[in-house]
């Protein structure tokens, strides 16, 4: 299994009618991460995921998955498990029947693992899928996906509809699976707070375009917040400025700089958090630069699994 990347796109675009839901998307997401696709509603996250799992056809460019397989090809379908937004299930089927259905439709299905997970979650096998709570439906969909033992798990807004406890439990299951099975995860969300704990790779999208992507550690190491007098904010040109926010006399600049870059006199440099970084990029871009990607060095996820899991 020589899979270096889970998704490769090149000039990928998708148009619905006259509107481009996604355009000029060129990405290479390395395997072995929990990659988070973040952006406001309508940013093109679902479109990108639909293209990756083969539900949609590109209008421009190309997309391959699992190290070179065309999206939607038999090998791609076999290796990718997808949990769509609102976790669609057949509501009139029982949990046991959903297991049997999924088993029939896939080359591999770990029935024992699935049943054990459901027992642990307290989801009765005889109950109709439609009678489960929202959290239980999401857990069932996730269990079905994981029992296929995919190499890539794709989750579209998995926790958007869940209450905080269900949200926590769901992400815990995802993280356990990544630790145990070594499955790569690509998930989309507009809930930033949830991701800080789980994601070690970030793709930020805005208005159908990818704003920035890279490993979380690298992104955090290459961005700083500079705080200084608001009057001087416009004169800062040493490093590229991503976003400026002003509060009375003070200005906060989100800049692409490392800890080694010099700080102008009268300014203070702070490290940045993931949420702050994401918000900076997702607010109105001050420069039209879309090539702000930070391709970091490939890092095996097993190097620091605890950091991801805890």
């Amino acid at each position: 299994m020589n899979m270096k990347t889970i998704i490769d796109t090149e000039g990928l675009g998708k148009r619905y009618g006259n509107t481009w839901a996604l355009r000029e998307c060129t990405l290479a997401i390395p395997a072995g991460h929990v990659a988070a696709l973040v952006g406001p509603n309508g940013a093109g996250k679902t479109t990108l995921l639909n293209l990756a799992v083969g539900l949609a056809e590109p209008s421009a460019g190309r997309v391959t998955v699992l190290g070179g397989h065309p999206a939607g090809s038999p090998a791609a379908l076999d290796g990718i498990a997808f949990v769509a937004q609102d976790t669609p299930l057949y509501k009139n089927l029982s949990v046991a029947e959903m297991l049997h259905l999924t088993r029939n439709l896939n080359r591999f299905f770990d029935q024992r693992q699935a049943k054990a997970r459901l027992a642990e979650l307290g989801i009765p096998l005889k109950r109709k899928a439609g009678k489960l709570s929202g959290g239980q439906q999401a857990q069932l969909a996730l269990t079905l996906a994981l029992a296929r033992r995919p190499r890539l798990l794709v989750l579209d807004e998995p926790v958007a509809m869940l209450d905080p406890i269900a949200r926590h439990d769901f992400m815990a299951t995802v993280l356990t699976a990544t630790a145990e099975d070594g499955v790569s995860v690509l998930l989309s969300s507009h809930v930033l707070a949830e991701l800080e704990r789980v994601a070690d790779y970030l793709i930020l999208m805005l208005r159908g375009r990818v704003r920035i992507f890279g490993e979380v550690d690298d992104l955090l190491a290459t961005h700083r917040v500079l705080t200084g007098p608001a009057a001087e904010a416009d004169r800062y040109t040493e490093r590229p400025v991503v976003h400026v926010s002003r509060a009375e006399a003070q200005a906060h600049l989100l800049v692409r700089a490392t800890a080694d870059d010099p700080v102008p006199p009268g300014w203070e440099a702070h490290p940045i958090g993931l949420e702050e970084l994401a918000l900076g990029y997702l607010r109105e871009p001050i420069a039209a630069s879309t090539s702000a990607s930070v391709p970091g060095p490939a890092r095996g996820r097993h190097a620091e699994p605890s950091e991801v899991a805890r």
Partner: protein
Amino acid sequence: MTALTLQARPEQDAALRPLPWRRMAWVTWRQHRMTLAGVVVVLGGLAVYLWRTGLGIHQAWNFIVTCRPVNSSTCGYAAGMFNTRYVPTQVTAGLLLTLAPALLGAFVGAPVLAREMENGTFRYAWTQGFGRWRWTLGKLVPLAVVVAAAAGALSVLSWWFFAPFFAENFGTPLAPALFDLRGVVYAAWTLVAIAIGGLAGMLIRRVVPAMAATLAAYLGLAVLPGLWLRQYYLPAVHTTSNNLPGFAWILNQWYTKGGKFAFAGVQKSGTNAAIEQHWCPNAPPSETLGQCLSQHGYTQWTSYQPVTRFWPFQWIEASWLVVLSALLIAATIWLVRRRAA
């Protein structure tokens, strides 16, 4: 969460062999067994209706056939009663049998894809390892074939039901409203109805509108061949004879004089009365208009399809319907492969 011992996942082959079709059998059965139960109820109910009323019809018919002396008032009365009483029954049965394939198409065919699109479950179904075009084929084809076979079984019963009406000189079995209720074409029409439903579901993506569209499209299509197509399956026979073979399907009549077309025939012409008034005002009642006109140098022509062509026509129609069904299913699969999300 406690660690679970995991089964080892087999490594992937370089060339993945598709999952076997039999995997879809359970899926299709489980997801459509209620629909199939509904089919059994509807077709079963129709069968019971045909059987119960058919028994009465056959009993009455046997009485007429065995009634002696034939010219007695009892026999004449029985024959008259048969027409009064059972011809409306036959019309009702014909109507129900005509509607059945349309309903099957709407209730069995249309929801197959429309429900998946409406509920969003296609996102689940089409991202499983089985593959989406094979999933579609594995659902539509067995459903269409099973339901068409059930309709075929019903058409055997309708053959028996209609037998007395055709034995009496009731009409030609080739007549537009009756031809497709019996024989192999009934099953073939049901097949088309379900294929139309499948395509409508994929095009419209909502269950109820797709069902309505299926009903409309099927009924529209079902009317056309009887009116404009079936008569051309084989070249019509043209004759100047007044004695047509029994049960012939008369298509047209016209008159010629001196080898040239004179006027359209009795059947199609609104000027019938005028012609009669002009040429045969005093013809005795025993003489037909054709016989009267022939005395004035006119030749009556009739084009018709002999009833011996019933089975050739059945196979011709069934063949193109099967081809049409295959094309509709192919179009559905083409759409499934192209426009999912």
